[in-house]
């Protein structure tokens, strides 16, 4: 009787753990969103087409085109080597500006165009030492890209 009860409890615990593990495992891969730079995105092979990814870079000066009366914004993200055109529809965050860092989440279509429905802007000024800001220095581009990856 006593051993039977013990096995009953151990068995239920094992079943619950297995179920929870399976739920976690099966949803894990799909919930992962990878981060790439524009140079990495253009090199991705076709199996990434349509998969949700994040791309981070600097919004190129002069690249932002807003279609008046709609929520469409086209812009280009650059990492210094490669420039990736992004078509975005939605409401960008307050910090989204040309010359600033931004992370776009979305997917790449068959033609290699990137469609984003979510933008996270990074306020690069906040990521540099305040002394530098006071002295009026600007942050090197590599450092901005590094903070974007964070």
């Amino acid at each position, binding site marked *: 009787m006593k051993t039977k009860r013990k096995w009953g409890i151990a068995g239920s615990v094992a079943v619950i753990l297995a179920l929870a593990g399976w739920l976690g495992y099966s*949803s894990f891969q799909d*919930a992962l969103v990878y981060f790439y730079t524009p140079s990495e995105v253009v090199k991705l092979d076709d199996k990434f087409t349509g998969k949700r990814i994040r791309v981070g870079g600097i919004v190129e000066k002069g690249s932002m085109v807003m279609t008046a009366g709609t929520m469409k914004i086209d812009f280009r993200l650059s990492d210094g080597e490669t420039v990736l055109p992004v078509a975005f529809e939605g409401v960008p965050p307050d910090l989204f500006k040309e010359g600033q860092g931004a992370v776009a989440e979305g997917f790449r279509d068959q033609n290699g165009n990137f469609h984003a429905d979510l933008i996270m802007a990074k306020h690069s000024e906040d990521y540099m030492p305040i002394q530098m800001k006071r002295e009026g220095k600007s942050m090197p581009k590599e450092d901005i890209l590094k903070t974007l990856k964070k």
Partner: protein
Amino acid sequence: MTHVLGQFSIMLALALAAAGSLAAVTSIVTAQPAWVRSARNAIYLVFVLLTMAMGALEYAFLSHDYGLKYVADNSNNTLPGFYLATALWGGHEGSFLLWAWLLALYSAVAARLHWRTHPQAMPYLLAISSALLLGFLCLIVFLADPFEAAKIRAADGAGLNPLLQDPGMVFHPPFLYMGYVGFSIPFAFAMAALLRGKVNEEWIRATRRWTLFAWLMLTFGIVLGGYWAYYELGWGGYWAWDPVENASFMPWLVGTAFLHSVMVQETRRMFKIWNVFLIIATFSLTLLGAFLVRSGVVSSVHSFASDPGRGVFILSFMTIVLVFSFGTLVLRGDRLKSEVEIDSMVSRESAFLFNNLFFLVAMATVFVGTLYPLMLEAFTGSKVTVGAPYYNAVFLPIMLAMVVLMGIGPLLPWRKASPEVLARNTLLPAALAVLGTLATIAAGVHEIYPLFGLAVVYFVFGTILRDFHTGARGSQRREGLSYFSALLNAITRNKRRYGGLIVHFGVLMMIVGLIGSSVFRIEKDVVLKPGDSFALGSYEVQLKGVTEVSGPNYSGMAAILDVLQAGKQVVELRPEKRNYTTSSMPTTEAAINENWLRDIYLVLDKPTGDGLIIKGYLNPLVKWIWSGVMVIGLGTALSLWQRRRLMKEQA
């Protein structure tokens, strides 16, 4: 001048914490009471010194002393008084100081409270408290000094991040720390019991109220964070499985498991090793939280400029705590064999066992989701985020199971339940669940997951009502009182049980809110010209115009929007876009109209062409979340109120 006083205080406090640790260890080795007294007095003095340091820093903020780097970085001349006073914990250095001050406060209070009642455990308590203080003070003095002098004394400060200028954000960190630090006292008691080799129920009885208090503060802290995100960040949500949110959620999950499982040891003398394990895990997770938030390894609204030195320090500190506490547990664990075993699958103790299992599975889920990206980046360099679908997939079923258990558990007797009695006790609640679910379907809810969730909520609600009713009836029979005073009588007689049930009721309210606001939420992004309108659920929102707004340290614009239902005006809302004078970053001020059924949540974005982009959310039942937490606070307070005279420990 202030920075001299402050620096002097923290350095002296560091020296005293070191001396106190030595004195306490000496008292353990030599068993001389004079050393215990010195160790205690050292803790009292550390508290006094840290209070002076807090006072000095506060004074520096209020007097705009930009000779201090920390003050210059986190405030400026136009910052309103309230935010100026609370900017003390607006950055890393001040937060660490607040943390250390709370630790000193709690340690001093614990030393005073338990001095007479727990003389044998006292040297160990003092040793552990002073060692923890020593660790935090090393961090403050050597790596995060809030009294560091500025290189150049600026005429004005850099200002406080506008996002932090909100009451929710002002109180979020102190509550969180009151919770985090609160768990260090039960931890110290557990370690004392373990080191003395006397793991009876004494340490659990002594720390019951410490644990409850810490748990409540942590709960408030976490919810205040969500409240702030909801009202200030303007994305219409309150929880995003952000690594920093997870950092505070993990100790909460294990702390909640601990809160429940100690009851088994108290009544049945089981789960002894397990309880020590849980409190060590809870305390270590609070340190992990500090590491994740304060070292800058994860990115979020919380972690700005980061300093790798601090991360390394906190990580090493955590490693020492883990090695020391788990090492002691392994070495002394053999003395902790339970004398009894679980008698039946259907009993209170097995309900607690499964409760613990679910809480720990939940914690493991959050742990993996939070740390996997860090590990992956450390080993492969790939950067990845774990999205909400993973958490939802695991959490929804676990939460359902936990809520069912929350209804059945309190009904079950210790040792062994008879299935007939259980069936009789759950009959009415089950009937209520069926009726409630049918009513919900009739009201137009047809999705399967929320229906299932609500059915469980109705069931548990029924069991709680039934419990109160039985208590009132019993008291009525015995004392011949009116129903209402009999109910009050029953509650005051057993504050702990009814307090717990009220907490469960608060949890149900929160779950109703969580289901409503996640499943039935409506979100719309539109472009409006003055006179245009859009439909939001059964409401119609019309743009009337735009106006300028200004405040003490910002200016901006507001959209004037009419919310109509069936052609009649419900309310006029004015979401704002603000530009703070000291920051180049504009902020969004959402306009919210709330009642028990739904929140209408409107956000103004920038103009496009001759129109304005407006985001509209209809968030059902959000108020239930905030109110549920108040009920949880009420129930915990009732439970805390039941004081058991602190019994003298047996020698």
